[in-house]
């Protein structure tokens, strides 16, 4: 059985799980049991590839992951904060509703799929199909910020929320692939870098940054920097492009005739 030790020297009540080689079901059972016992911070040591960590949790617990978590980290999550001190794999924050996931490394494909609230911050690059089918309603506005670059299909079918690409280290290089915002019909993307027309989906256009955008970006960048320790101090707001869909319902007439 895994060792479980409570660090009583800290004001908060912290629990540790030695998760090396442990199956994800056992990890999640332990996490849920520790939350019931009132722990506010749970540290998972030696994680490597275990899927579904933190899925479906609704409390305001902090979970620290040391190691590479497996796919679907924080899926359907509704409240907790997850901090990963390493890289992450695919489908982080799948359909999450509230809370925050901070990856202090790079992350894989399909990050924030169908996300409907909360925030995902990734220090480095993200893969293909990030923010695909994100959506928003009233004050439920999901946010993904990546410090690096993104692959193809960034924000595909996006219906709401905010995607930010900081492109740090990719100055004068491509910061995103092709098919950006294909099928997009809601939400906003901010991309620091250059974009060619042929990289864009048919439904999006490039707009210039206004004062409201500036406020949104500055607040997000400050929070991102606090969480990831990535320095954003020298980034110019004027270097960002804004992408929005120019039609609210691009397929609204598809089945009319």
């Amino acid at each position, binding site marked *: 059985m895994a060792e479980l030790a409570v660090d009583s020297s800290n004001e908060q009540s912290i629990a540790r799980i030695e998760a090396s080689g442990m199956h*994800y079901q056992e990890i999640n059972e332990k996490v849920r049991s520790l939350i019931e016992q009132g722990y506010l911070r749970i540290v998972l040591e030696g994680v*490597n*590839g275990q*899927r579904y960590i933190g899925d479906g949790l609704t409390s305001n617990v902090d979970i620290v992951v040391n*190691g*590479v978590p*497996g*796919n679907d980290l924080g899926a359907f999550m509704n409240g907790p904060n997850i901090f990963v001190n390493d*890289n992450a*794999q*695919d489908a982080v924050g799948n359909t999450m509703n509230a809370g925050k996931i901070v990856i202090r490394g*790079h992350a*894989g*494909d399909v990050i924030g799929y169908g996300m409907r609230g909360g925030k995902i911050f990734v220090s480095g*690059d993200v*893969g*293909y199909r990030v923010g695909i089918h994100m959506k928003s309603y009233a004050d439920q506005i999901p946010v993904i910020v990546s410090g690096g670059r993104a*692959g*193809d*299909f960034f924000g595909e079918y996006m219906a709401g929320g905010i995607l930010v690409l900081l492109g740090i280290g990719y100055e004068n290089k491509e910061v995103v*692939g*092709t098919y950006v915002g294909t099928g997009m019909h809601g939400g906003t993307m901010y991309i620091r870098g250059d974009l060619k027309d*042929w990289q864009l989906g048919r439904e999006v256009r490039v707009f210039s940054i206004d004062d409201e955008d500036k406020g949104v970006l500055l607040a997000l960048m400050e929070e991102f920097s606090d969480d990831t320790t990535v320095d954003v101090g020298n980034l110019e707001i004027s270097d960002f492009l804004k992408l929005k869909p120019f039609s609210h319902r691009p397929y609204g007439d598809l089945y009319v005739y």
Partner: protein
Amino acid sequence: MNFGDRQGKWVVDEVKVPDACGLSGFINLDGKRIGGEIVRESMSVMRERGNGLGGGYAGYGIYPDFKEHFAFHVMFEDDSGRRICEELLREYTEVEKGEGIPTRQKCEIVDPPILMRYFLLPKREKLESENLEPDDFIVQLVMKINTQVPGSFVFSSGKNMGIFKAVGFPEDVADFYKLESYTGYTWIGHGRFPTNTPGWWGGAHPFNILDWSVVHNGEISSYGINKRYLEMFGYKCTLLTDTEVMAYLFDLLIRRHGLPIEVASKVVAAPFWEEIDQKEEGDKLEESLRMVYGSALVNGPFAVIVGFSRGMFGLNDRVKLRPLVAAVKDETLYVASEEAAIRQICNRPDNIWAPPAGEPVIGRLKGDA
């Protein structure tokens, strides 16, 4: 040689089998040989990607005592197929050694077929009468056995390498074949999740012809076109899984047509016409490849790791519909479906990255290795 209809009892149906699987492979570029237990360890963290209906490995450099011989690994449904096959082998080849493939009795793998291996060379007079190079002769011999001998399948036919595959989880397959007793400079592993038809021994990955081995995650929707195209060059698809066409395509494109790996990758993962249109005036390579090799384009999602005698490469479909991660540590290149599979056997790589769609990650043995 003539091709006949195959009548084995193992034929389930003439359908392709798409799957969603786990891959891991590594190559030591100095040719340093590493135990098969390492690739087993890597596969163990991706258990969730498979469902126990297929696991397998390819190891290169594992038969140094017979490195000039073609090493046939053959599975037989029963002894009658084995007798016919061995008769054929005696007729066409000099069999230096024939023996059972060593297996562990007490393990999770149940109901195995008869598993044999033969170290052999084509008979010189047969090469002359057929007017064939040894490699082409071996391809035809494999096709002949797989299509004409009931219940017999050659699942490995390269030199100084071997395929080990079964119905089971990858860790159990490694234990069954005593993978820890082999050392190789390249190891490739696969855990299978067959979705449309039952998993069977021949349908486990890797798929192999000569020294080409392919493990695949995805679904090849162009299977029918690729299969018919390959038939024109004498390749017969008999193993009921779409991945088989990939092994034959790389043999055709790289060995027989002499294309570099980078160019063969542009054939199977061809860029979209929109991307080709962005090319500079006069750059006609991609356009020509699409026109010449239209029927070798592999459509649908795939991530593959391909092994060959002097290297290994990983490749994604052109829109990256399946995951693939690569890493380098000193003289070893790693490619896998998940970063965790690499980190399990290489905790601190010098570099770890996600290869872009359609761009191969290639590791080649150094000149003198």
